[in-house]
């Protein structure tokens, strides 16, 4: 029927016109810059008025023995895992509690809004806020800890590798668990009420209901969240940038891949090598995303 209708349709081609703006924008602002970056990765260019000079694979030869690059990859992965695991656990837990109709909590909507709130603030402002809280000399965290007697003298958080990484992960967790929670909540809401009621009637406790019904039913949401966080996590930039004076301080132990690329390109004016770091990062993200999608596919089977 539909095919029959379409056979005589002279206007079908106009459809392309309607979707053209999107593809045009995509081409100009995403596809072209990406291709151009790949081109630049084979050149040496300071971003100045002298045209990029083709240097072949020189940049890549440099990249594979660049210890700072691999350090930044390690940093990014460590901080991502330290952020994404607690974020997921927390978000699922809260989502389960806030959607459970057998648990009486006053002001569920209020909590939902409050948990989501940090996500509405600009990343850079959140970074700055935490930077001031963590300031070792005048920050409120040290003042608090000293007042209650945990510390006897101020601790320099942002000069300690573990503390810096934890601070960054914590900040990201604080910002994003509300967002993940909302996704899980919608996933849980989509589960048929009958299942929960049946479990309730059969005398299953909360814990059993959670593991046997909630978790298996929101696998899709979990995977979706995981995949988006792979991309978001590997490209993390704002918070670490602000918290580490843009340098990945202390001594590059909190330098993320994007931060390294940004510094190389825009602060050191080495556009060629900056693009090479981009390509390196692109390959890494591609590998992770492929794995994540494989997992998604498996679930669909």
């Amino acid at each position, binding site marked *: 029927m539909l095919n029959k209708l379409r056979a005589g349709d002279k206007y079908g081609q106009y459809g392309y016109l309607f979707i053209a703006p999107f593809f045009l924008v995509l081409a100009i602002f995403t596809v072209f810059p990406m291709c151009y970056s790949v081109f630049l990765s084979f050149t040496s260019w300071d*971003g100045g*008025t002298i045209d990029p000079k083709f240097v072949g694979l020189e940049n890549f030869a440099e990249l594979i023995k660049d210890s700072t690059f691999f350090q930044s990859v390690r940093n990014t992965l460590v901080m991502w895992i330290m952020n994404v695991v607690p974020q997921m656990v927390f978000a699922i837990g809260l989502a389960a509690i806030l959607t459970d109709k057998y648990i009486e909590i006053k002001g569920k909507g209020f909590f939902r809004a409050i948990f989501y709130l940090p996500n509405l603030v600009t990343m850079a402002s959140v970074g700055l806020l935490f930077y001031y809280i963590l*300031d070792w000399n*005048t920050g409120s965290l040290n003042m608090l800890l000293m007042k209650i007697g945990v510390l006897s003298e101020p601790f*320099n958080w942002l000069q300690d590798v573990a503390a810096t990484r934890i601070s960054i992960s914590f900040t990201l967790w604080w910002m994003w668990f509300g967002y993940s929670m909302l996704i899980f909540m919608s996933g849980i809401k989509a589960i048929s009420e009958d299942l929960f009621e049946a479990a309730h009637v059969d005398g299953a406790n909360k814990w059993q209901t959670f593991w046997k019904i909630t978790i298996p039913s929101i696998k899709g949401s979990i995977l979706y969240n995981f995949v988006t966080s792979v991309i978001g996590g590997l490209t993390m930039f704002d918070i670490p940038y602000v918290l580490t004076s843009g*340098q990945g301080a202390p*001594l590059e132990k909190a330098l993320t891949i994007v931060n390294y690329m940004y510094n*190389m390109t*825009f602060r050191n004016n080495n556009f060629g090598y900056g693009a090479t770091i981009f390509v390196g990062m692109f390959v890494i993200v591609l590998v992770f995303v492929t794995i994540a999608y494989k997992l998604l596919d498996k679930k669909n089977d």
Partner: protein
Amino acid sequence: MKKFKKLLAIIVCVFMMAGTFAACGGGEEVTESPSPVSSAVASEKVTEASPAAVNPADLKGEITFWHFNKDEGPAIVAAFNKVYPNVKVNLSIVPDKDQQFQNKLTSAIRAGQGVPDVFPAESAFVKRFVEMPDAFLDLTEKAASIKDNMIPFTVEVGTDSSQKIRALSHQAAVGAVGFKKSVAKKYLGTDDAAAVAEMLSSQDKMLETAKKLKDASGGKVALFPSWEEAKKMYLGGRSEGWVNTEKKLVIDSKVDELIDFSKTIRTEKYELALDQWSPGWASAIAADEQAMCWAIPTWGVPWIIGSNDKKAADGGRWGICKPPFTYFWGGTWFGIYSKTEKADLAWEFVKFFTTDNATMKDWAKANQDFPNNLAVIKEGSGEESKIVGTDLFKFYEPFVTSINGKILTPYDDTIERQFDDVMKSYLAGKVKDKAEVLKLFKEKVKTNLKDITVE
């Protein structure tokens, strides 16, 4: 093209006409010249820049001008148009947040299209544009007769590696030391600027003074709020910049001294371990008894002291003295696009606010700035600064010429960020000794600047 020829014809006519007028008027107008028009003519006499001085009001045309500062840009244009009412300056403000100004300008220069006739560059990136092919026009000849009235370091900054002058500045961000008078008087026995300067005149004397201050105040007052105050002075006192002409990284003896000095003042608690520009650092400026000395450039009098210490303008709280090592901190330079079709008109514009005595004096007073004009500096500002209680022109005059402008390189921003990172770790006790500091620093420079030789 036709339009351009027409414009050129007009300019040439104006030049010729003005030449005759100026020749008549010049002789008698040196002393009594209240109107802006004749003051400009008078300044032509002082600088003797062009053989035929132009009557500013007759000069017609249009130039484009970009600036990254939304306050300074319009102010410059307004000052210019007061004297040159018939030259239209099309101003665009492009902030340099995330290097936006630099990137936009570089793309335009690369494309050879849409480049403004005149554009500025800040000290942080001026060298990049001074050395960039096709960016700034060679002003060596044009500036030959006026450059001697400028503070030498500003000319050095605007000069490229082949000794061609590319950019000129209307201001000079000369560095000094701002100190709390009450603290100096109470614990060191004097608040006289010369005496305080003497107490800070060398590394040993600074340490001695810091100890005296700490002991006398019972550990309440430190000499500096941050090691970064000392950094400004030490780096200014270097004899060579971070990178030499062979593109090799240079660790000047002053850098070497700075590493030890900073560590000493941190461990001895002669500084408050605050980060420059942090809220704690700012509140220490307002506090009566926390630290004594700040690195204060010319603009720092209103914008570091004045804006943080609300009581500063009442006077008597702050003094200013000569730093142990002369330095400069900041500043904006202006140049003309190398391929502009309006080089002459653009030159009038640049020349006007980098040489005109009356304008520069008014500008400096109105903006609490310091003019890059030796004749004006010599005259003095004619008034005492409300904040530091001295005629600032007279105060800076004895040491402005000893500042080294050759130490600025296009790599400073990147190199100093690496230096800060390593130093902050060192001062926090995370890097064990100076040898390790230098090793890490060199590694970082090597990673970040591929075209620099590091040994």
